[in-house]
C-alpha cells in the first residue's frame, strides 16, 4: 500500500533515533538467531518494507563485512497474492526484485513496516513459494500493532504497539516521506 501518510501524524511513538536503534537491535538479533549472515536474504514488501529492508541490509553489512547488502537484499511485491483484490479499488502493482542468486535454500527475512492482520505476510509467503524454496523464512517488522486475523507472528519486532482497531498507525521514512517517525492517531472520520 502506497497511500501517503496524512499531514497530521498524531502522537509520535518512535522517533528517528528510536527507529535506528530498533533496526540495529533487529540486525543483531538476526545474526544471533541465524548464526551469522551466511545464506541470509532480505526481502522487503513495497513500499516502506522495501526501504526498511535496505536499511537493515546496510546495518548487517556494517556488522558483518562478509554480508554484501546489494547482493542480499531485494523486494517482493505481494499485490497479486492479496485476498482483498475484489474489495478495494484496483491496486497498482509494485515491482519484485530478487537477489541474483535467488532464494532457494536461503534464509529469507521478510521485512515490513507494520504487522497488523497478518494478511500481507500470508500473501508474501504464497508469493515466495512461486519464486523458490527457501530453507527458512523469518519475519521482521518495525511495528507490531496486534489484531492478527491469521496464525502469523513476527520473529523480530522493533516495537510492540498496543492499538485499538480504529486507531491509525503511520510509518514515515526519510527515503519515501522525507522524514523518519512512527505515529499513532485516533480514527479520523471514516478513514481507516
Amino acid at each position, binding site marked *: 500500500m502506497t497511500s501517503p501518510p496524512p499531514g497530521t501524524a498524531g502522537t509520535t511513538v518512535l522517533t528517528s533515533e528510536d527507529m535506528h536503534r530498533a533496526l540495529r537491535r533487529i540486525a543483531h538479533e538476526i545474526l544471533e538467531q541465524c548464526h551469522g549472515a551466511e545464506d541470509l536474504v532480505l526481502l522487503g514488501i513495497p513500499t516502506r518494507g522495501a526501504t526498511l529492508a535496505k536499511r537493515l541490509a546496510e546495518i548487517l553489512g556494517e556488522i558483518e563485512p562478509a554480508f554484501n547488502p546489494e547482493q542480499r537484499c531485494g523486494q517482493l*511485491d505481494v*499485490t*497479486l*497474492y*492479496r485476498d482483498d*483484490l*475484489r*474489495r*478495494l*479499488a*484496483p*491496486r*497498482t*502493482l*509494485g*515491482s*519484485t526484485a530478487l537477489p541474483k542468486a535467488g532464494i532457494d535454500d536461503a534464509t529469507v527475512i521478510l521485512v515490513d513496516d507494520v504487522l497488523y492482520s497478518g494478511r500481507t505476510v500470508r500473501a508474501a509467503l*504464497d508469493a515466495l513459494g*512461486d*519464486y523458490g524454496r527457501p530453507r527458512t523464512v523469518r519475519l521482521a517488522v518495525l511495528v507490531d500493532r496486534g489484531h492478527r486475523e491469521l496464525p502469523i507472528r513476527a520473529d523480530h519486532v522493533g516495537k510492540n504497539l498496543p492499538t485499538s482497531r480504529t486507531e491509525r498507525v503511520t510509518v514515515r521514512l526519510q527515503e519515501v516521506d522525507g522524514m523518519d517517525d512512527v505515529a499513532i492517531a485516533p480514527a479520523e472520520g471514516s478513514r481507516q
Partner: protein
Amino acid sequence: MIQLRHLLATADLDRASAVEVLDTAATMAATQARQIKKLPPLRGRTVVNLFFEDSTRTRISFETAAKRLSADVINFSPKGSSVSKGESLKDTVLTLGAMGTDAIVVRHAASGAPHRIAHSGWTNAAVVNAGDGTHEHPTQALLDAYTIRHHLAGGTGDLAGLSVVIVGDVLHSRVARSNVRLLETLGANVTLVAPPTLLPVGVETWPCAVSYDLDQAIDQIKPDALMMLRVQHERMSAAGGGYFPSPAEYQREYGLDVPRLGRLADAAIVLHPGPMNRGLEITSAAADGVRSVIVEQVANGVAVRMAVLYLALTGKEER
C-alpha cells in the same frame, strides 16, 4: 489506479490510463520470466473467450493470459458468422451469464458487437473487445504500443515525440483504428500510408497524417516504427474489381521490400499484427530481419492481456 469496467476501444483510455495499463503489463511480463508463471489474482473467476470469428492466435493469447492469472477459461466459438442466422448474440450472452461469467472476451465480425454486449443489459460481465469487425482491436494496439515503448522509449512512460507510420488497408483495419487513437493518446506522431481506395472517407478528421506514398513517408518522416498491416485476399476481388489492381502492384507501391527496409533509420523497428502475407505487404527479409519485432509482439500480447484482465476483474464489485 484505473479500473476498467470494460475495454471496448482505445478511445476509452486517456494518457494516464494507457500508461498504467502498459506499466501493469510490464510488471506482468516480469513475472513471466519465472519458472512458476501462474499468479493467483483471478482465482475462481471465469473468463469466456467468445470468438465468433476464427482467430487462433488472439484466442490463445487471451487464454494464456487468463490462465496465468488463475482464472477459469471457457472457449466458446459459435459456428457460423453473424450473417448466418443461428442463436442470436443476445441469447448466447444470456446463456453465458447464466453460467456465471465474470468476463467475456469477444471477437466478432460485426463492428460494435462488444459494445452491444456491454451496454444492452444482457450481462454484468466485464467485456473485452478482442477485435470487432472493422472497428477496433484495443489489446492489439496496447501490445503494439508496449512493444514500441520497450524498444524506443526505455520501457516506461509514454511515446511522446516518436513517429509511427502505419501502412496498408486502413479502411478495413481495426488494428489501424485502435493504433491511431492509442498512439496519438500516448503522444506519438502517426502517419497512415495507403492507396486512397483503402482509406475511409473522413480519415482527414483522424488525429494523424495521411499519405499515399510509402517511399516519401519513409524518406521524409524517417519513422521510428513502421507497422505493416495485413492485406486480406478478399480485398482484391471486392465490388468494382477490388481495391487495387493486383498483388504485384500493391507490393511495388506499398510492400516493405529490401530497398525500403534499407532506407529506414538504424534504430527503427518493424511491426506487423499478423498473420503476415509474406511477399505481399512484407518481404521475408523485413519480417525476419533485425528490425523486426513481430515475434516479440506476440509475447507482449500475453502480458498486455494479463494487465487488461487484471484491471477489469479486480477492484470493487459494482456489477
